[in-house]
């Protein structure tokens, strides 16, 4: 079965947020702060107001009305304080995009600047322990005696890894069209990963009852977390529409996206691992240093995968945060697991080298039969099978462990392995199923951001109803539909699917005409278990000894993620995640401008994402995993696990190829060459 919306996507008819035909729409264009910290003395907008077609200028000179408890990143124009370079400090509304952009360039903002502090460094005096890390884990955990475990170890490593600022960069820039009706109700076409939560946040920001706000987002051009929470563009569109008395469209530029739509925090991670002569871990310590803004505490859960991965008598994990004059970091594909597993799985490779042990075997002997931190039993855990199956498919047993010895002309060749993991959660959702013209319609305010949610839910509903998929129509992407959680945390399908199954069961049980479901009680009664997907990734690399360039001719991922709802969609999700992981390994990096604040490389010519020629062969397969403790589908989320471990597998392969360990992503030619 192909994607149900395939045809509208290949014919150019699918409507993304900026593309709804709206009568008399005007355009807003933001003005961004040029200082990283300070106060706005005056916004000079007289010239802009005189320019052709200008309908309104918004700024703190005449603060528009917003709720007092609005999120600090969304409380546009409410304060004269600047928290980071690139923050939206004014905006112009005009009848055409060209006029709005030109007038925005004519707005001059006068600042009283302060000294700023924007660089994450391991000796920053401002580090503190947050109360919790995302979404609600303890910041620190301790079990056993790490120092004793390290002291008694036959081999140990003490290494520091770092990862840069990363930007999600979905292909569709964040956009919104806001329309107020005469009764003061607001309709927003928004690029969002969740119509219901976006509606709630917008309503709260404007102090409106939820019933007076509707968010529509039928197609979303990728998100990867960047559209997981309400972004300032949506608030700006609604403010601008109120000021101009007309519907207003805003589409952020690629450059503006870097500043105001979130990013993955840079991390500095110290790993200390010890093992006995047989490779059994005696101690694991993972401490993560990361940043947030002065506006909002966002504490990425970077060290949490160590609480899940390997059996050890001594385990300490900790997070330290510093608040800098930067934009607030946010969700990016596998927040926490992705950077954390890069460091942990690289350090495991170093430990294997120190022990003289095969890195697959090291992971196998340390497999855990209960969650290492806390001891909760796993609902299912097939990491070892993934490693074994991957090793078999990849031809791992022919591998010579010696680093830096395989040369083909200028190219050094190596292979590497790393494990993957991601939690399998679900949240309450509602759904409504009914019969229309002899077919079945299923409604749920889910989001399809490219995951294939529509198609997966058609399959799930068809299974539950016992009818062919072409008799089922799924409606999603609208907050007027039954309430549903965000497409995030790899829990979309699990959450929405649970509600869809229950609604379909209700329909069958009742009059056969309609059925409703709300899974709040069901989800609340889920047994306390450790639920995680696992995987193993294998990479082959070729490293040029002349240029330092790294090529990845082969990537293989083997995953154990419960029952796979739709093989074609799943494969696309896995390889998509792995491809993004390849970008993280080799090229993706936003620089922080220490002199002026804000970011450098704010476009796709400088922030490199993988292009077609970078991705020759990516293969994803999965095990048939049965787990009755998840949800009615027996599925675990798959949107994020694909990116977890890829960068470590590639980095480990680069070490195997060259004999050099680069502990600082991305693995650019200059870093590699400097080791030769």
């Amino acid at each position: 079965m192909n994607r149900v919306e395939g045809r509208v996507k290949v014919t150019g008819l699918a409507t993304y947020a900026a593309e709804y035909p709206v009568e008399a729409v005007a355009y807003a264009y933001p003005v961004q702060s040029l200082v990283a910290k300070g106060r706005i003395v005056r916004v000079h907008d007289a010239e802009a107001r005189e320019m052709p077609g200008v309908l309104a200028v918004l700024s703190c000179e005449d603060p528009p009305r917003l709720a007092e408890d609005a999120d600090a990143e969304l409380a546009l124009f409410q304060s004269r304080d600047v928290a980071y370079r690139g923050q939206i400090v004014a905006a112009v509304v005009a009848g055409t995009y060209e006029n709005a952009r030109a007038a925005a360039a004519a707005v001059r903002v006068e600042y009283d600047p302060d000294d700023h502090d924007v660089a994450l460094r391991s000796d920053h005096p401002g580090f503190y322990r947050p109360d919790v890390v995302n979404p609600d884990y303890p910041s620190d955990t301790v079990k056993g005696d790490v120092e004793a475990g390290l002291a008694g170890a036959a081999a140990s490593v003490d290494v520091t890894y770092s990862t840069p600022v990363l930007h999600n960069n979905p292909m569709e820039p964040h956009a919104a069209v806001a329309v107020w009706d005469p009764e003061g109700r607001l309709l927003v076409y928004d690029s969002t990963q969740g119509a219901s939560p976006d509606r709630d946040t917008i309503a709260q920001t404007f102090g409106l009852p939820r019933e007076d706000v509707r968010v529509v987002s039928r197609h979303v051009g990728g998100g990867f977390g960047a559209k997981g929470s309400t972004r300032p563009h949506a608030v700006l569109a609604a403010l601008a529409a109120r000021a101009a008395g007309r519907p207003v469209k805003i589409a952020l530029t690629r450059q503006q996206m870097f500043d105001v739509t979130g990013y993955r925090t840079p991390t500095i991670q110290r790993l200390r691992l010890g093992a006995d002569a047989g490779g059994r871990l005696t101690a694991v310590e993972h401490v993560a240093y990361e940043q947030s803004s002065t506006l909002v505490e966002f504490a990425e859960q970077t060290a949490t995968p160590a609480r899940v991965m390997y059996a050890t008598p001594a385990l300490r994990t900790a997070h330290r945060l510093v608040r800098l004059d930067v934009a607030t970091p946010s969700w990016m594909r596998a927040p926490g697991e992705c950077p954390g597993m890069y460091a942990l799985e690289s350090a495991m490779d170093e430990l294997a080298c120190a022990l003289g042990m095969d890195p697959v075997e090291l992971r196998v002997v340390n497999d855990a039969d209960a969650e290492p931190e806390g001891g909760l039993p796993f609902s299912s855990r097939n990491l070892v099978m993934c490693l074994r199956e991957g090793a078999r498919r990849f031809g791992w047993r022919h591998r010579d462990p010696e680093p830096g010895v395989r040369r083909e002309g200028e190219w050094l060749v190596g292979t590497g392995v790393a494990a993957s993991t991601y939690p399998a959660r679900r949240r309450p959702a509602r759904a409504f199923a009914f019969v229309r013209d002899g077919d079945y319609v299923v409604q749920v305010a889910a989001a399809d951001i490219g995951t294939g949610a529509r198609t997966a839910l058609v399959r799930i509903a068809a299974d539950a109803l016992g009818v062919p998929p072409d008799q089922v129509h799924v409606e999603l992407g609208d907050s007027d539909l039954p309430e549903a959680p965000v497409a995030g945390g790899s829990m979309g399908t699990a959450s929405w699917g649970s509600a869809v199954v229950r609604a379909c069961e209700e329909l069958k049980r009742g009059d056969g005409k309609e059925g409703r479901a709300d899974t709040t009680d069901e989800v609340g009664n889920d047994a306390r278990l450790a639920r995680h997907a696992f995987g193993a990734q294998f990479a082959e690399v070729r490293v040029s000894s002349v240029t330092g360039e790294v090529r990845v001719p082969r990537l293989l991922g083997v995953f154990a993620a419960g029952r796979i709802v739709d093989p074609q969609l799943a494969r696309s999700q896995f390889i998509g995640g792995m491809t993004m992981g390849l970008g993280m390994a080799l090229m993706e990096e936003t620089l922080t401008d220490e002199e002026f604040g804000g970011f450098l490389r704010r476009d796709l010519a400088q922030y490199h994402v993988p292009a077609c020629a970078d991705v020759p062969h990516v293969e994803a397969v999965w095990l048939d995993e049965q787990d009755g403790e998840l949800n009615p589908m027996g599925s675990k989320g798959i949107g994020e696990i694909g990116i977890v471990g890829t960068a470590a597998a590639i980095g480990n392969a680069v070490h195997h190829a060259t004999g050099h360990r680069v502990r600082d992503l991305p693995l650019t030619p200059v870093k590699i060459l400097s080791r030769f």
Partner: protein
Amino acid sequence: MDITLKVNGTPHAVDVDPRMSLLDLLRERLGLIGAKKGCDHGQCGACTVLIDGRRANACLALAVAVDGSEVTTVEGLAKGDDLHPLQAAFIEHDAFQCGYCTPGQLCSAVAMLGEPGPSAVTDDLALDPELTPEEIRERMSGNLCRCGAYVNIVKAIAEAAP
């Protein structure tokens, strides 16, 4: 400024702002939303259309500069209800996820298949190269896909190639 152009065979006479790009003309004035804006700087390929048969970034062309041209967008690839073979192959191979890069990939591929001559990865410069997966990857690298559908895009194009 007054210009005339044909888009997908339909003639248009429009009065455009001299600062307006062809991409904004299509999307904001002509209601053709197929060509996407991913960067507005010629860096992503989402806006790729055919201008007089050649692939081009619509964000880098000023509307006034295409006065008198024939433009084909993704909306013009299918013949009525019959999809272009590349469109059908993209669906069959799941060569997209979010679909935002897809119109650009499709227009780019349509033109690419008709482009003669060697590329940076062609071994024998004297011959018209065979369309190997490596050639397809090289020739399609101006079209970014953040969803990472490249593996499937290459398969789809290889299948649809004549």
